[in-house]
Every structure is written in structure tokens, then in C-alpha cells.
């Protein structure tokens, strides 16, 4: 069912990226991993994903800038889920204003993430 769904993950923590790769690929999603916002933009333009998962704090281009770019420059309505750390509530609000669809606070539960992804892809 979810085999054809593409996900771009923008996350600079290699351990988390690898863990999510294990889980999401097992669930038959096609995952493209970027270590920073700049590479994520390239992957989004190249693969036109069904959903974007992004951390807020990243090198070169932040999660906020990435969200803004997808909504305002690429004019895409692709669902965007933001990962934030505790204490970044104001930044999360900014992300919603820029067009993010959902957020999860770190440390994240992989099962909960999966449910949210499925919900956003409906």
C-alpha cells in the first residue's frame, strides 16, 4: 500500500536518520536522507516526495527555511512534519505559520512518528 510513497528526511543526526531508515523502509516507504536543509531541497526537487520530515536546527538551511522554500518557492502542498527539541515552542509556531502540518518533540517515539506519517498521507 505504502510502497510507492516517498519521504524526504532532513536530519543532521546520523544515528536518528539511520534508525528511521530501518523503520520506514521496513514499512515500505522510499526514504531519501539529507544531512542538511540544502541537500534536502535538492532531494525534494529531484524526487517530489509525498511527505517531508525535517529537523528545525540544521546546518546551512534550517527547517523553517526549508518549509518556507517548499511553500513559497516550490509552491508545493507536500505535508511537512517538523522535529523540534523541548523549549523550541516559539519556533514550532513559526513553522506552522510558514506552512508546516505537524510537529513532534524530541526525543521521538518511532511508533508515534509512523502513525503521524500515515495520518498526514491520508
Amino acid at each position, binding site marked *: 500500500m505504502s510502497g510507492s510513497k516517498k519521504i524526504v528526511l532532513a536530519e543532521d*543526526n*546520523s*544515528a*536518528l536518520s*539511520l*534508525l528511521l531508515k*530501518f*523503520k520506514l523502509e521496513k514499512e515500505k516507504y522510499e526514504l531519501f536522507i539529507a544531512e542538511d536543509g540544502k541537500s534536502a531541497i535538492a532531494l525534494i526537487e529531484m524526487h517530489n516526495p509525498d511527505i517531508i520530515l525535517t529537523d528545525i536546527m540544521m546546518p546551512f538551511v534550517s527547517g523553517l527555511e526549508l518549509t518556507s522554500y517548499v511553500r513559497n518557492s516550490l509552491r508545493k502542498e507536500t505535508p511537512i512534519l517538523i522535529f523540534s527539541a*523541548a*523549549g523550541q515552542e516559539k519556533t514550532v509556531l513559526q513553522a506552522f505559520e510558514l506552512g508546516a502540518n505537524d510537529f513532534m518533540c*524530541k*526525543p*521521538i*517515539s*518511532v*511508533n508515534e512518528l509512523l502513525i503521524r506519517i500515515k495520518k498526514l498521507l491520508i
Partner: protein
Amino acid sequence: MIRIQNVIEYVEHYPIFIQVVWLVVIGLTVCILISVVFLKIMRSHLRRKENFIAVYQKKIEIVLIEFVYKQYENGIVLEEEASFPKAIRAGLHNRLKRRIILDSMIKLKAEVAGEMAQTIQTMFLNTNLFDYAKEKLQSDKWHIVALGIKSFTVFKVTTVSEEIIKHINHERVEVRREAQLYFVNLFGFKGLGFLKTLTVPLSEWDQIQFLAVLNSFNDQKIEGVEPLLKSLNSSVVLFVLKLCKVYSLFEFKTEIIELLFHKHPEVRVEAIKLVSHFQLSEAKNVLKEVFKELNADGKIAVFRMMKEVANQEDVPFVLANIQDLNFHIKLAAIEILKTLDTEKFKELKNSIHDEKTKEIIEFVAYS
């Protein structure tokens, strides 16, 4: 050989000064050559080490995540060290590899919750990583001690609190901060007991961090605040005043009013702001009594409070301070007077000859 002898004989004909210069030149050339070779070796060693760290870190991350993920999928948490991946067990006996393993575990622990986090924690507790972290607490190097405490905070090890409390007044702020965060992160409000023994100042940043951590606890039962309000460490008192404000601790109003007489001006000002925030009218008369002894910030804080709680009986006090040299106090006094007694305000308007005060009165009258 003959050529060298010729050169030496040739140089010997020069004056002594030239000979010394030649010696210095030769000496410096040799030094530079040795330095270049040394730096070359050092750089290639560092690059090799850097490459090794990158490769080993990647390898360990994969092994660690595979293990954690497998346990998570199987719904079990293996506690025996023998059940942990061979690559990790082998690396635990080498200092550099152990550091990389620990860093990878901390990195993952900070990002994931639930059973996966539990597996990583079990690995920390059931390997020699725990013992090494404990050893770090005894180190003479401050940064090693700080790292040791941090690992106990990340892996939520509560059993070493007696070791860590010894570092609460450490001479290095980095160690103190880690020790304090250990108690707040692991024990919440109960962990604030360390403030009783704290003799060094708490920075504003530390206080903000503590409040952020405390906010994340479900158990919001606050105990033991009363003695902290009497602490000899004024930064502790300031922090507890913040706690009182954030968690609306009205029950300590007597202690807070006592702080209006605190020897430290900053504590007095914060106490005034808090009684103003709580609108403790009983503090008003106390503040009027000590008003003259307060500094400008304190006086401004009193008048800000007065704006909220003043009544008719405060008119003489307000009138007495209407000619204060401080603009903020003067403005607040005129505004309060306008609200409390319109007649007296009109009288004031007609009796004042000072141009600046007149301008303020005009502004307040039409605002």
C-alpha cells in the same frame, strides 16, 4: 670531507660576528626542518585518527541501531553484556573506541524515546561504561568530571547522587552546571535540595535552564522552598522568587514580605515585583516604611505596585513623592494621583510651576 673542511676554513677567515650569524642561520634552518617534519607527521596522524573516528563511528552507529532496532522489534530488553553486539563489547576496552561508543549512545538516546531509549540505557548500565563514568568523577581534570556527570544525567542514573553532590560547589562553572542539571533533570523539584548547600552564584542562564527542566515534570509538587527563601546565597533566593512567581506559591507570602528588607538590593527589587505580581496589599505599608531606603529600581517597582493596589489612604504618600527626581517615579505618582483623587490632581495641576512636571501632568491629564 675536503669540501666541508674548505668551507670551515673559509668561514674561519670571517670576523667572529659573521661566524655567529652563520651558526644562527644553520641552527634555525635545522629547527625549521625538524618542525616541518614534525608537523607533517602530526597532521597525518591527526588525519588518520579523524578518518578512523569517522569510520568507526559509522560502524558503531550501524551496529548499535541494528541491535536496538532488533530488540525493539522483538519486544525484549537483553541485560547481559554477553548479549550485546561483539563490535561494541570489543571496543569497550579501548579508550578512544569507548568514547566513540558512548558518544553514539548519547546521540541516539537524546533523539529517541520509549523502549529504544530503554535498551540504550540498559547497555550503559550493564557494561563497563558505567564504571568508567564513575571513575571520571574522581578525575583531576575538570572537563573529564563534567563529562562523567553528563553521562549519568543522559542515562538517568540516580544511584550516584552522593558522588555528584560533592561537585555542586566545584571551582569550574561547567562542572557545577552539570552537577546541578543532574539533580534537576533526575529528581525534579525534590532535586532542588542541592540549593541548600550551594555557596556559589547561580547564573541567570542556569536559572532559566532549571525552570525549563522543571516545567517538563508531571509531578509539580513543590517542597522545601521555605528554607531556600532564607538562603545566604542571594542568587538562590532570586531563583526561588522566580519559582514562586511561575508556580504562584502564595503560601510563602510572609517569607516573601520579609525579603523586602533583604540586604541585597536585587533581592529587594525582585521581592517588590513579586508582591506586586501577587497584589499582596499587606506588603504595601511595609514598602511605604522602607521606601526611602530603596534604590531607584526598588522605588520604581513600589510605584508600579501602587498602580495596582493604591487606595485613598495612600494619597499623602503619593503626593510626597510627586516631586521625585526620577522621571518614572514622578510619572507613576501623577498617574496614581489622577486615579485616586481627581480634586487633588487638579490642585496639583494649578500649583505646580516646574515646567517639566507641568508637561507630565498635562500628558497624564489627557491620556
